[in-house]
């Protein structure tokens, strides 16, 4: 094998054309012992990526290798089918075989690989015990709760000791309480799994908590990669900003000022020049009835366009010249008697504004810029 192929881990560089309208481009490296989260909205191409890596869908171009072994390479016409790959998959909706018991479901992968029956059952029972499913082995999937089914699916994926673990929306079918509980179970088992792990999710909490590295995927392409903090604090697209709850503004920087087209904003960094992306957290913005002076603050007059109650907190949407989402306490809102249509002064400290150069990154930057102008995605 030529080139620098990692000795252990998954390397994916793929293009899949599903139709004239949809194409998936993905470039990932997952070292052994690392969890990469692929975070994106429905229809972004996440499940297509799972199918390709699992061997259920050949790629159109690129290369997939696992621990240095080529799994899919259209150029040299190599395609290892799903049943010959050592990949454990927890599918969306789990896809437990409805006609088989919990025991038979989990033992399925061992029996197809010709492990003797007694040995397969012993190993299966061991995994069922580990996941707290020992008493359920005779049940059919239809008689399991969502949380139990999720653990059965996890056991079925892990029992064959695969080289790679794929999890496609593993928690999305669960109610909120069960989800929180199982997120911990999942975290433990991800940590215990020695190989590379790929988590597909549309839930930022899941991605932020379980992923060592996060790739944000939109419309078939990765729009941002980084750690949870990178995505949260420095989102590069409207989608990522919405996930993090931050305001995202594009503009042109020059000598500590950014022209957004409708407003000039002061920033703390006066070195940066050219195209930039600004992030302002909703709690970093203050609202006042009158103009306030002093300190390097940005301040302008606007109207309240929308008021949204979130328990003891309130989220406001302000109007032109710069539309922002602002979060404050309900007490503060009541004191200022803010309602839709109120005229207010908005203030943001320059030091509270995140600034990053809007340079080209991972070849997907055109999407990032596309996604910026609209106030709502």
């Amino acid at each position, binding site marked *: 094998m030529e080139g620098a192929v990692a000795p252990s881990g998954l390397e994916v560089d793929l293009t899949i054309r599903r139709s004239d309208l949809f194409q998936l481009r993905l470039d990932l490296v997952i070292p052994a012992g690392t969890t990469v989260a692929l975070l994106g909205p429905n229809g972004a191409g996440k499940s297509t990526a799972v199918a390709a890596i699992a061997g259920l869908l050949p790629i159109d171009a690129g290369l997939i290798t696992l621990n240095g072994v080529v799994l899919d390479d259209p150029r040299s016409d190599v395609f290892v089918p799903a049943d010959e790959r050592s*990949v454990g998959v927890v599918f969306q909706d789990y896809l437990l075989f*409805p*006609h088989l018991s919990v025991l038979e479901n989990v033992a399925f992968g061992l029996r197809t690989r010709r492990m003797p029956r007694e040995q397969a059952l012993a190993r299966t029972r061991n995994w069922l015990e580990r996941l707290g499913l020992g008493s359920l082995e005779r049940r059919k999937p239809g008689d399991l709760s969502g949380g139990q089914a999720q653990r059965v699916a996890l056991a079925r994926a892990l029992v064959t000791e695969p080289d790679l673990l794929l999890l496609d929306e593993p928690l999305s079918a669960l109610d909120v309480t069960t989800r929180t509980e199982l997120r911990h179970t999942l975290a433990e088992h991800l940590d215990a799994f020695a190989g590379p792990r790929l988590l597909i999710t549309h839930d930022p909490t899941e991605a932020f908590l379980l992923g060592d590295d996060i790739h944000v995927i939109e419309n078939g392409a990765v729009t941002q990669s980084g750690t949870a903090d990178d995505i949260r604090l420095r989102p590069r697209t409207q989608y990522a900003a919405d996930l993090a709850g931050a305001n995202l503004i594009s503009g042109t920087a020059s000598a500590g000022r950014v022209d957004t087209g409708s407003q000039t904003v002061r920033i703390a960094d006066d070195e940066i020049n050219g195209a930039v992306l600004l992030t302002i957290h909703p709690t970093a913005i203050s609202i006042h009835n009158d103009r306030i002076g002093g300190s390097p603050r940005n301040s302008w007059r606007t109207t309240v366009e929308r008021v949204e109650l979130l328990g003891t907190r309130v989220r406001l949407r302000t109007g032109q010249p710069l539309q922002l989402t602002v979060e404050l306490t309900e007490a503060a809102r009541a004191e200022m008697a803010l309602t839709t249509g109120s005229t207010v002064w908005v203030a943001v400290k320059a030091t509270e504004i995140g600034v990053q150069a809007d340079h080209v990154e991972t070849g997907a930057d055109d999407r990032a810029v596309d996604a910026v102008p609209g106030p709502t995605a």
Partner: protein
Amino acid sequence: MSPRSARRRSGVGRLPSLLIVLGCLGLALFVVPLAGLLGRVPWSDLPELLTSDVVTDALRLSLIASVSATAISLVVGVPLAWLLARVEFWGRSLVRGIVTLPLVLPPVVGGAALLFALGRRGLVGEPIGELTGLLLPFSTWGVIVATTFVAMPFLVITVEGALRNMDLRFEGAAATLGAKRWTVMRRVTMPMIAPSLVAGLVLTWARAFGEFGATVTFAGNLQGRTQTLPLAVFVALESERDTAVAISLLMVVVSLVVLIALKDRWWKAL
């Protein structure tokens, strides 16, 4: 129960009486002939009539033909259904049309077509006859072929529908667990469509058991060789009406037992 509580119980208002009347009228169409038949049964002579050579020969032949037709349908009809459901090929609609044609074609026409194809001077029948000496028309094999021709479409359309409605992702899941194509078929696909398969087999058997037109046209009407129960009824109606009634009763009882044994879940799978 007052009308008010009836309304509350069903949630959608009172049972509409017009529907009840029309539904009962529809039911009458099935029940009245059955009653007519039962009214004519010579109960005291029944044991003797049913043990006559004509009847036992015909019953044996009917069972052989219907069970064989069902078995052949299982062996070749399921793969055909799978191809129609899963493989995209040019002319698939045409093939599906041809397969389902026997459902709408008068069985006599089917029998005639079989005769032209498999008869002594037929397209395929002649070479087969010369090579093996096997002559399908007027033989028990001919009865089985004619019966299969008429009954197999029931299995094919039922199984094809089930294969189409099945969530293909289960097969993918099995593949990621190391299952080869054949194992996927045996351990996942077939068990998952089992209710439809059973329903299709029972329907196929029931249609085969009652087959008349194609059999009489293609295989003739020879007692002990090609005369099945429906044919025996037809012959007996001319001369021995009591025998005809006795055979008819026998067919009604056998068919009803099988159809009632079809559990609800299998009906649902249709």
